[in-house]
């Protein structure tokens, strides 16, 4: 029992990171229909930047995160304007190829600026809590809490604010949204800013809890898309449920089936969902 509980706790922390990545992906997909493949690498850029500011420039962690969030938002806006907007009306393949090209570029930029060695954002959180044999490191607790807070903030933003409602409207019906007087040229910029901010938050989490290294972002973005397919494309509750499900599945698979094939098992779950429920766990039929 302790083991199962411990594995679920293990899975929730990484699941929280998946959720944040998937939320960023899902709002972009909902609005533009683009699989923003560079999202993982951009998120890692945010993590790297935070590391750079903390470890090399001596910024306090919170300030560094704030700076990284702002820089990330600007970067997101630039990506939309310079890369995706020009292919908005072209074949959907083109947008995906642009996404792949962007991924290469951002990975290259990360490599150029921050090197090939793994990077860990230093934090002070080193305590470990233990309840009845189940342990929870302080840092993981913060990551879970931060992820929960961001998910809550995101839900409130989308459901309760005018801008959030406009974003949903554009996702559901672009033409009708125009008729509501929504500036549909602006919405993608806002969406990319939010998406990248969420990604940077995930990048900081990965960078402090684990490490950032070349290729980590790409691995993460694939997991993010697996979450999307699991939860339902463009669905915010789907991203939350799918992310936790994927994280816990991986931990349980590694703990009880095979650590070598845990990613394979995660993808098999994704394929199974695709076959049995193509619209995803939370998607509408």
């Amino acid at each position, binding site marked *: 029992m*302790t*083991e199962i509980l*411990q*594995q679920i706790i*293990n*899975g929730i922390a*990484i699941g929280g990171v998946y959720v944040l990545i998937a939320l960023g992906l899902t709002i972009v997909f909902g609005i533009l229909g683009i699989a923003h493949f560079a999202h993982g690498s951009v998120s890692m850029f945010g993590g790297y930047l935070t590391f750079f500011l903390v470890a090399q420039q001596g910024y306090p962690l919170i300030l560094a995160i704030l700076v990284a969030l702002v820089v990330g938002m600007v970067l997101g806006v630039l990506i939309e304007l310079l890369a995706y907007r020009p292919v908005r009306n072209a074949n959907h393949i083109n947008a995906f190829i642009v996404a792949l090209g962007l991924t290469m570029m951002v990975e290259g930029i990360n*490599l150029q600026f921050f090197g*090939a*060695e*793994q*990077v*860990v954002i230093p934090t002070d959180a*080193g305590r*470990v809590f*233990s309840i009845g*044999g189940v*342990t929870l*490191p302080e840092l993981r607790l913060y990551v879970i809490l931060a992820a929960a807070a961001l998910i809550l903030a995101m839900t409130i933003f989308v459901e309760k604010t005018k801008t959030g409602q406009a974003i949903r409207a554009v996702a559901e019906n672009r033409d009708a949204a125009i008729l509501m007087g929504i500036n549909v040229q602006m919405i993608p910029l806002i969406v990319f800013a939010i998406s990248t901010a969420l990604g940077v938050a995930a990048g900081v989490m990965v960078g402090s*809890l*684990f*490490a950032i*290294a*070349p*290729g*980590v972002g790409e*691995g993460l973005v694939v997991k993010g898309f697996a979450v999307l397919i699991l939860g339902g494309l463009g669905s915010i509750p789907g991203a939350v449920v799918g992310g936790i499900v994927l994280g816990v599945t*991986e*931990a*349980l*698979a*590694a*703990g*009880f089936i*095979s*650590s*070598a094939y*845990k*990613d394979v098992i995660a993808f098999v779950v994704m394929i199974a969902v695709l076959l049995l429920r193509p619209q995803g766990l939370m998607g509408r039929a």
Partner: protein
Amino acid sequence: MKIRALLGCSAATLMLVGGAHAAEKTLTIGVADALTGGAAVYGLPQANSVEMAADEINAAGGIAVGDDTYMLDVIVYDDKANPTEATNAVRKLIDRDGVRYILGFCCSGATGAVASFIEYEDAVMLVGNAAERSITTQGISNLVRTRPPADYTGAAAGAFVAKQGHKRIAVLGALETSFYASYVEAFEEEFKKSGGEVIAHEVFASKDRDMSPQLTKIREMQPDALLVVGYVEPAAFAYRQATELGMDVPRYGFTSGSEEQFLRVASSEQMEGVWDLRPTELTLQSTTDAGLAYHANYSERFGDAPSPSSPYAYDQAWALKHAIEAAGSVEDTEAVAAALRELEVFPEAVMQYLPVEGKMFDQNGQAYTANGAFQWQEGHWVFVEELPSDQEAYSRFLSTVN
């Protein structure tokens, strides 16, 4: 003014005269190694150390072959530790640049790809840090390797851990990487001899940084000790997460990571007491004068301490110099390859090679170094003792493997 110009003139004349005496030629050697990507941590220092060795050899008068003196010139290509890129790099060195001597090679996949065709080339290949055993079991006569295979070290480690009195040990490692797997295999064999048992073989991939699921499973099995085998980046997380999960069993490992690399991930308290059972390589506490000089020169030249495994490549360059001089030819690669097999350990060597029948490389072209047990004590790796290794016996064993 005039006097100085005259002096300059005569100096130039002198040099011309000197040059005409014995022909000074250039020998171009090649390096194929990972300069970018994840494996650059191993490859780049190796490439640097070859360039440094070449300059030192040149400064010491070059390579003397008959009446000629050869000055070394080094071409370095990036193989990204990728087999196709490595093949391309070596093809280019041989076919386009006319290079006959190729050094470097930090990583097994890329090395294996090149080893599969080098036999048929008019060239000599010197392998460095790549630890996969099969590289020197194929009887390739124009290939030698300075680093011992991982299982040679694994066996010594198994005997050492058994001696500590552990009976049930859990393994967590990059077991999909075959030289790590072979380390564990040899470890297990030795460990079993004294009645021990390996109760778990859990795997992490090179990009995994969250090993808590595997460790949770291991924790449940209540082993006497933990053995972590893999690249330092993930291994450091395994050590840290083991403490986070409240595991307080002794931890052994095979990672060859530096102090800085571990401290980036885990605190010194979390690392306290961890053992690293590995080839002795370059450690300031246990090295020779050549090693100290190497460390100082490298640090000065590249502004960064050399990686512990980088001297494998440095020693390649010196081994090549001595072999060419012994063979008396730069053109006859067969003679040079044969001379390498006959070479005795030379004074410039940084690693502490254990000769086999008096030779640096055995009949398979394999060199052996001492293995050591290092322990993390208050923020530092401390050399505790040499691991008992029998290079002669292993060399005989290696000849039987195919």
